[in-house]
């Protein structure tokens, strides 16, 4: 600290102005013993802060401003209008719904060119769950579900490493399930989550991503006989050719819904619990066997209902839910212990 002397030029309770011997006019905090006008005081001049400290102060302010600016720009750029996910739906037609951060529809792309275009629904700005309901409603009005064994296939595809939780897979599945029950729609439904790579692979083969996932799963299980199965654009036809069912291929992601009787189609054991895949075979072969003998059970709706997602994949006798040819007998893969495609 450098010392200097100064004459008191003005003083108040808070501050005192001094004229120093080095010709400076400086303001100091008034000492406890209030100085008199004209009194000479010896004071310690505050040493100027090193440049480093001053630089840190300015750098901090600059960094905060820069951060605030960056956040503002980021918010503008990645606003709610940025696509974060796509939902591909396959029923009689195939369409892609591009979804924003708020899980609302940004755009509808009809992937089935030349066919009836369900995308003429005004879906922009509608949340994905409602949009899917509206699409199903429209298909229902067009009689799509009047035929037996219809499929509602849905895939969620996060885009460009965006957060995957924008669309809740379980919520979407339950939403579709609830809506189908409310509208008395019978169909086999699947909601899965996949990725951009799978979509690209599907596009390269000219398939929808849902169709491709089924095709791949059939291939993985060695069920496909015809290597040219990829040419089949009809998913039902492909499943029939492979002699399998959607639910046996995707036990966790799919379920059969047949609301006429309002009953679950899954089997329950004597304790009232749903049966699991392996134990179904080993402990209740009578029931499972009887199911296998009813390949078109769902279509006949002898004991129709719907299957809860959590239990369906475990009690996954393929023939118990959908009326497609049963998988090869004795094939361990048909027990429902399939690896998920995620």
């Amino acid at each position, binding site marked *: 600290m450098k010392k200097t002397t100064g004459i008191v030029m003005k003083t108040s309770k808070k501050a005192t102005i001094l004229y120093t011997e080095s*010709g400076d006019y400086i303001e100091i905090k008034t000492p406890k013993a209030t100085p008199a006008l004209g009194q000479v005081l010896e004071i310690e001049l505050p040493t100027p802060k090193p440049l480093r400290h001053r630089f840190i102060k300015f750098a901090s302010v600059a960094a905060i401003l820069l951060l605030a600016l960056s956040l503002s720009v980021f918010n503008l750029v990645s606003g709610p209008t940025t696509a974060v996910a796509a939902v591909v739906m396959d029923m009689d037609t195939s369409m892609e719904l591009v979804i924003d951060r708020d899980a609302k529809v940004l755009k509808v792309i009809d992937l089935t060119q030349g066919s009836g275009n369900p995308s003429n629904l005004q879906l922009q700005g509608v949340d994905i769950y409602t949009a899917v309901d509206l699409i199903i409603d429209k298909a229902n009005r067009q009689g799509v579900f009047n035929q037996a064994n219809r499929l509602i296939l849905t895939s969620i595809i996060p885009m460009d490493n965006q957060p995957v939780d924008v669309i809740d897979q379980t919520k979407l599945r339950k939403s579709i399930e609830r809506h189908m029950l409310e509208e008395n729609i019978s169909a086999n439904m699947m909601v899965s989550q996949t990725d951009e790579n799978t979509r690209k692979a599907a596009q390269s083969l000219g398939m929808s991503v849902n169709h491709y996932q089924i095709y791949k799963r059939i291939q993985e299980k060695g069920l496909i006989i015809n290597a040219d199965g990829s040419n089949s654009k009809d998913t039902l036809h492909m499943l029939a050719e492979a002699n399998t069912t959607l639910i046996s291929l995707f036990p966790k992601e799919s379920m059969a819904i047949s609301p006429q009787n309002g009953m679950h189609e899954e089997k329950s054991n004597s304790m009232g619990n749903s049966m699991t895949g392996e134990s179904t075979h080993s402990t209740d072969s009578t029931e499972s066997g009887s199911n296998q003998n009813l390949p078109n059970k769902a279509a006949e709706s002898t004991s129709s209902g719907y299957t809860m997602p959590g239990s369906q994949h475990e009690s996954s006798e393929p023939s118990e839910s959908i009326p497609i040819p049963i998988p090869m007998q004795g094939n361990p893969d048909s027990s429902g212990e399939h690896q998920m495609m995620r």
Partner: protein
Amino acid sequence: MLSLTPLEPDKDDLYDYESASSFKQYKEEEQQSDFAETVKNYTTVLAEYGILLEDLVEVSPKHRDSKATLWRVAQEFCEHSNLLKYLTKTKLLPLKELELLTGVKRKVLERGRKYLIATALILSDPEFESLKSFTQIDSIVKERG
């Protein structure tokens, strides 16, 4: 034999000390009184130029070189009575003349206008002689080298 030395030397030393101390205190009080009077007048005169002490706190040069430059300008300014007369009459600095006289840029003179007037008053007005004496002018002006 009679000694010529004081009988109570310690007492005399104390007397001298008290005397010196009192004298010092007296001088300080006198100086303070003088300063107080000067400061009052100085503040009043500054106000005539529209300058407050708070303004001078704000505009006092922060760098030694700048301060030295302004002091040198003020010194040269005070050597020219016609320029001083202009200042006291109009309360304005003859910036153009000062620029020519000192070679210091008009912008610098304008920026240091209040400080320059305050300094010129200290240097030129005999009424503020005590402030002039208090200021270590040489060391300020030498800063510039």
